[in-house]
């Protein structure tokens, strides 16, 4: 089911006239919802008066399933949360387990985690920019962005054998060390990726049609971004300078020199462009991390097969491509988590849709949804 008219209803305007309110159902399976999301749009002519996202089509009960698996068996489940950026959920979960069980991670493993997660950020942003561009009619950009993403997926495939659900970051380390020649390929990618980013910036963000389509659409103020719990590029596009890699920093991020790009207008243009600039910064981090990395173990020695952390709860979060991704874990001392809760940035950012879409055209609704970059595996969990 794509786009269907749900109802037509006559409503009286304050001026005394009568207009017809059209309720249009978009989705749950529609290309511009980027997954299985249904949006119920109330229209006055072509203007959206109310847009309500309906979610839950991808709810697999991952948090409940985690209660029936051992700590290590949960890692593959976290892959299925944000399937565009699986490494993040792996890492956030593993950090929570490590905090709960008091596991120290070898330095090389921390560097490897940073390298794969920054590459993952580029891959995820390429997906986001490409599909958001396709939503606004720029199909060329989609191909350019996916070409870049494919090269990262190939790097991941060489590293751990999987293209989408990596299961790479494990409690206590990572699953594989870098294969021969991987570093050179990754550095070569960073070099050529910058040129591709320059071209994309000129081709898409410099385009007069794109500017007309994205500028001033779905404006989110910095205060609203904070009040609605927005994070990641959505909050930074509005000028909220909150990046967990800089503030509340973790892992080996303090050792790298990088900037956090922020926007100023909080519109779709700024949100999408912040993602593009983050790709430059990710390239910088990858290059620094690969240069600083020393040989050493990639897993903590003496890790038991069955982890049974002491009773208690722990929360840890990382900066994913969509924002602050956190995992809250409760242990009762057994080999299975008592409770796992994922703080999903896509879920929090999606809550902004009704507010941002109100008063805009129906065609802008699609662009606004694209600029929020929700991944429904993570929204529904």
């Amino acid at each position: 089911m794509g786009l269907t008219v749900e109802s037509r209803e006559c409503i009286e305007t304050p001026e005394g006239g009568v207009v017809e309110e059209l309720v249009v159902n978009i989705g749950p399976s529609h290309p511009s919802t980027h997954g299985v999301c249904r949006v119920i749009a109330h229209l006055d002519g072509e203007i959206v008066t109310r847009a309500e996202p309906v979610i839950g089509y991808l709810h697999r009960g991952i948090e409940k399933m985690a209660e029936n698996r051992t700590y290590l068996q949960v890692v593959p489940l976290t892959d299925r949360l944000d399937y565009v950026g699986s490494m993040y959920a792996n890492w956030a979960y593993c950090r929570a387990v490590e905090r709960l069980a008091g596991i120290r991670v070898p330095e090389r493993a921390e560097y490897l985690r940073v390298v794969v997660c920054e590459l993952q950020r580029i891959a995820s942003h390429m997906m986001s920019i490409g599909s958001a561009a396709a939503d606004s009619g720029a199909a060329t950009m989609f191909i350019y962005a996916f070409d870049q993403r494919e090269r990262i997926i190939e790097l991941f495939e060489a590293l751990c054998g999987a293209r989408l659900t990596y299961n790479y970051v494990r409690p206590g380390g990572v699953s594989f060390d870098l294969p021969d020649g991987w570093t050179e390929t990754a550095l070569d990618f960073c070099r050529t990726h910058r040129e591709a980013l320059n071209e994309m910036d000129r081709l898409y963000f410099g385009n007069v049609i794109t500017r007309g389509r994205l500028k001033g659409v779905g404006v989110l103020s910095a205060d609203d971004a904070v009040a609605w719990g927005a994070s990641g590029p959505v909050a930074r596009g509005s000028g909220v300078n909150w990046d967990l890699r800089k503030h509340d920093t973790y892992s080996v991020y303090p050792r790298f020199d990088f900037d956090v790009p922020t926007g100023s207008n909080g519109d779709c243009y700024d949100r999408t462009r912040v993602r593009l600039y983050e790709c430059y910064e990710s390239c910088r981090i990858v290059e620094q991390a690969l240069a600083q990395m020393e040989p050493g173990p990639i897993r903590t020695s003496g890790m038991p097969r069955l982890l049974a952390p002491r009773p208690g709860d722990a929360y840890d979060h990382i900066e994913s491509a969509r924002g602050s991704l956190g995992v809250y874990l409760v242990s009762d001392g057994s080999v299975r988590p008592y409770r796992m809760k994922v703080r999903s940035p896509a879920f929090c950012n999606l809550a902004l849709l009704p507010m941002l879409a109100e008063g805009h055209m129906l065609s802008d609704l699609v662009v606004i949804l694209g600029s929020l970059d929700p991944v429904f595996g993570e929204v529904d969990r």
Partner: protein
Amino acid sequence: MLPDETVIRSALSRVTQAEVSASTLGVVARVPAAEAAAALEALKASELDFVMLVDLLGTDTGEAIEVTYHLRSFARDEDLYVKCELPYDGVLHSVWNVYASALLPERETAELLGLTLAGHPNPARLLTIDDTPPLLRRSVPIRTTEEVRDR
């Protein structure tokens, strides 16, 4: 970063009797469920400046439902957890007029833990269909595919 326990205690003392302690989670303030909204309002308005509700979640502790509010202060770069306990047939009072970001997580928590949501503009189900049992209760078993098929 961890906030100062005494500062939190004094900020909360005006509205409620709070138990503030440090744990593996961080600094946790336990408040009575009826005063959770007032406590959050006080924390947001005070000089502590907890402007963001990062997350809201519920846990079935075996005796009650424990609701956790995760707050964030940007000015002080601090995180605080406010916890309260509700009985199994309890009512979760919405705090959306304090923190707008509570709107969706509250619906999710009420639905998955079997609580009644009050004071919410749209207390409908969010993730599951009607008549689904509260999945995150410990009393609701996890069924395998075979068990569901042969049911």
